């Protein structure tokens, strides 16, 4: 019955994996530092326009987002352009309230420094964007950012 003899000493030695946790932890910390938490689930599709003269938004904590585009779930919500504030669809009239609520959440010193980033699908008509801008003006939020991607060189 020695057909199934275990081969001892012949196989290659096991790799020492004692430093594996350290490597993984290093990766973990790298990702924790370089990334930020996802804040909302997108309910609208956005293909951002391209631009060359773009600036980085430095402080993510001082940015609020307004998403505009056709709904992701077009079977239920149709294909008309919709506005998304926080986690739900909204209409133009909700923006003033959204800005007011956003102010309430922030410390007093930061309230005037907030930038509103407009993440708008490039196929959108300007009418809705103009309406949003008018509402923001009325609400006293003057710093805005037209979110766009860096254009690849055409050459």
């Amino acid at each position, binding site marked *: 019955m020695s057909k199934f003899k275990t081969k001892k000493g012949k196989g290659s030695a096991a790799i020492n994996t004692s430093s594996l946790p350290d490597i993984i*932890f290093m990766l973990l910390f790298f990702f924790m530092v370089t990334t*930020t938490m996802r804040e909302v689930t997108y309910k609208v599709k956005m293909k951002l326009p391209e631009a060359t*003269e*773009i*600036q*980085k938004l430095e402080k993510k904590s001082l940015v609020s987002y307004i998403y505009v585009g056709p709904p992701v779930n077009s079977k239920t919500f149709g294909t008309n352009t919709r506005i998304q504030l926080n986690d739900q669809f909204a209409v133009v009239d909700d923006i003033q309230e959204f800005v007011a609520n956003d102010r309430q959440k922030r410390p007093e010193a930061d309230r005037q420094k907030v930038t509103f980033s407009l993440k708008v699908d490039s196929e*959108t008509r300007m009418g809705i964007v103009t309406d949003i801008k008018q509402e923001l003006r009325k609400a006293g939020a003057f710093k805005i950012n037209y979110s766009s991607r860096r254009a690849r060189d055409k050459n």
Partner: protein
Amino acid sequence: MARKAPEINAGSMADIAFLLLIFFLVTTTMDVDTGITRKLPPPVEDLEQEIDVKERNVLKVLVNSRNRLMVNGKFVDISMLKETAKDFMAIHPDNPDYPEVQPKFIDELNREVMTSKGIISLKNDRGTSYAMYIAVQNELAAAFNEMKNELSVSLFGIKYTQLVNEDKIKGINKAIPVRVSEAEPEDIGGQ
């Protein structure tokens, strides 16, 4: 001699770390937010009070619902917009076809520079596509950035984007203010 504490089995440490790693990979995003930053004007209280600006000081940029561009009454291709804007905003003393110029003493630069009184007025239709609007904003921003670059090179020998001195940056921004005004919305061309 006290007995040594038995060693803890650390074999599953890697699994725990992997779990955490995957959790963070899924819940976080890495995208850097970039875009064109603009400042909106405060709301106008009474429309009666019109600000008087001379005709020669305004470059009217219109975009219609078919994404066609018109600059001071002439159809222009988007590729020409940057040059047109730069030419318009450049200093042309004593030329009545261009905006007025005005000497201005800027403390940060400690010198007097000629500044243009020109304003670019941007007007778009409700039917204009957002991509076109951003393209126009981008070209105008490019024109101003190029002018800032040129001034910076002529004054300090380095590009505007490479300046580190706060005062110099402020001075250049004062010498070449980004004057893009957006008109109150109205329909300027049918759907």
